[in-house]
């Protein structure tokens, strides 16, 4: 988009849908996902319960699995995932 910006090959948005039954408290389920995302070094917050991972295909897919696993381990029953490859992703500044 701008000079110096290397557009990510793959972007994955993960939204944790916390479970109220069993496991950790809903907030902690989201925090567990964030923590796993943070450790990847690829993450940005995308909303109160959503995280975006952006980077090379392999590292994003790898990090995505860890985030999902951390969410499930913390008691979440569902994680919504949207993955966009660079070629298909909408790009800013283009008509």
């Amino acid at each position, binding site marked *: *988009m701008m*000079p110096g*910006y290397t557009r990510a090959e793959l972007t994955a948005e993960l939204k944790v849908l916390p479970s109220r039954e069993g496991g950790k408290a809903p907030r902690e389920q989201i925090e567990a996902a964030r923590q796993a995302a943070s450790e990847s070094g690829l993450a940005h917050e995308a909303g109160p319960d959503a995280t975006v991972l952006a980077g090379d295909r392999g590292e994003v897919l790898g990090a995505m699995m860890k985030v999902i696993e951390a969410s499930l381990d913390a008691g979440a029953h569902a994680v919504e995932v949207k993955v966009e490859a660079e070629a298909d992703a909408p790009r800013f*500044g283009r008509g």
Partner: protein
Amino acid sequence: MTRAETIPTTPTRERPETPVSTPGRVGESTTRADGVPKVTGEFEYSSDLWMDGMLYGATLRSPHPHANIWSVDTSEAEAVPGIFAVLTHEDVPGRKVCGMEVPDQPVLAWERVRYQGEPIALVAADHPETARRALEKISVEYEVLDPITDAEEAMREDTPKLHLSGNLLRHIHVVHGDVDTAEADVVVEGEYEVGMQDQAFLGPESGLAVPDGRGGVDLYISTQWLHIDRDQVAESLGLEPDQVRLHLSGVGGAFGGREDLSMQIHSCLLALHTGRPVKMMYNREESFYGHVHRHPARMRYEHGATRDGKLVYIKARLVFDGGAYASSSNAVCLNAGTFACGPYDVPNALVDSYMLYTNNPPCGAMRGFGAVQVCFAHEAQMDKLAKALGMDPVELRIKNAIKPGDRFPFGQEVPPPAPVAELLERLKAMPMPEEEDITGRDLRRLPGGVSNVTHGEGVRRGVGYAVGYKNVGFSAGFDDYSTAKVTLSVEGGEPLVRVHTAAAEVGQGIVTLEAQIARTELGVNKIAVLPADTSIDSAGSTSASRQSYVTGAAVKAACEAVREKVFARVREEFGEDPDGLSIEDGNVVAEGHGIVVPLAELLDGEEIGELVKYRHKPTYPLDENGQGDAHVQFAFAAQRAIVEVDEELGLVRVVEVATTQDVGKAMNPQALEGQIEGGIAQGLGLALLEEIQVKEGRIQNASFTDYLLPTILDMPPVKMEILELADPDAPYGLKGVGEPPTIASTPAIVAALRDATGRELNRVPVKPEHIVGISGPTGQPPQPGSRGPAAERA
């Protein structure tokens, strides 16, 4: 949280009529079509936007630079009579974050605020005062956290992370040659600091969002890049891009501060929630919180040279405070890393450029970004080195000046033209102004001016030089392009050319230039430049000194395509060889035969239109050692500043700035002079006056009473010599011209101050207390009377 009152008909907004002008041709000074309306007060700036039935939007902002948000209660605000909407992050239907490089900034904060002034909630009301009162009724429960306000602190491992990805936003590592084995006879070291400058555009952020009644929205806005705004707005509204239409409104200055979003998404959210047009306009104080600023920087340098003055190596460690969110910090970090060594041929270099997140105000684009900061430092180093070597500082620069065929420390071959030595030689040869006697001088020509605090006692004169450079256009692999549609028709019996692009006119004169190009290429006297909007493809940003190059090339190419069609028709109908044809004053003319046919007759009521997309040659990202053909064009400027300083009172008068600049082609000489003088004024501001004072993450001077700007009384006469050395890859050979004057003027003025006072002055802006030595620039002890011996280490 909305009390929507949908009005039955889709509102529309009449736009001012497109002016038809007869501009000069390329290379001629020509009066700009918006010039007279601007000076007579008739020009419609975005703050003048108005529609019957419109509401007023306002923003609740965090008073804290760092806090958790535990709750937001809007119920009392919603009950205020005259309030039509109160919105929080829950009302953002699409992507809840935005950002032009990294989407890391909440449209409206949800659980944490990371800078003072971060938007949390929005209201729409029937009157601005009602909106303000409703904001006061919104209750936010905060848990105030310690702010991280120092970039070095943010870099430490044990510092809490402000973002999931950590506090280090970007690191550029440039390795050129081998600094470890390089042997120098003389070494100078220095630490430099640049404060946070504001773009200080005079027209604060403003816009008007108008719902179209079909779920989409039109936004009239002052911005630098319509399409990047459009796409971010659409994504956060959950709409398709074509449901969001942006129209450029009158822009009261930009300088990078409008490249990122302010209220674009907010106003559209409110408009779609209420079904009414919504106007938002920041006041001056809010404007300081509503846009990004120039990055403060701390820079440590080490230069090594031979005894005869050839650079052997440069080491630089650059630390930039990006503030709370990314904005265009990635690009700033890249520019600083690539330009850190200045326009010099240095065989060995090691540069580390770091960009950090903190809880300070977000920083981003501002005229000359990245290059401004490092130029202040590398030019101070060159002066220090010259002193250590006993050399003339200009001679030292000339001896090391980079030239075509050399390689920059980031590996790219220097393309022609790169007349660094010639610029310096010509600058040095420019006559010095006559020194005026202090006694009896008009007070306006003394340091301190009409405040009448000095009568010339202790006034000393100093002279300083600097040379700066920067890329033109977008870099490092970015797909940089512009789009132009040119249509030739006949109206009222006369040929008319319509030019349409999405290039944002922010005061720099692109609209005039587009008209000049059309007149030059098509030989038609009447030109209409249509308003910029998103109904045509992107023109890219009005930044990086790029519009004359990229949009200028697109307009030129579209004109050429139209001309080709005209000539093809002439060949078909009259059998004339297109090679000998031209268009003059609306007539197709054959060489040696005179007029073949008037365009009005040839077109016979038809139009000829061509749409062209222009791309400059590709650039490439840097590799892990900071090597790559990252930039497309380089623009250079050298400057000499002469100052008078009252050493006892710390007062400064800049007597004159002389400059030499290579512009490739002076497309509109009068506009060029304006760019150079304006750029110098902004560099003078950074040298002497302009700084956003931030303490513990809080802005202390969010007003033009306390944030000091240079006025006409502070501006010296500017003497300039323009070189027109054509860039073979650029349209008409032109180079971008907006940024180099700002880059070189700050270090030149501070060099002159050092020459006058003998002090090191390693921080800008230089304040009176630094000149008189009451306090050191960065908490260092004062150095009374010191002429700043260079840190020589033979």
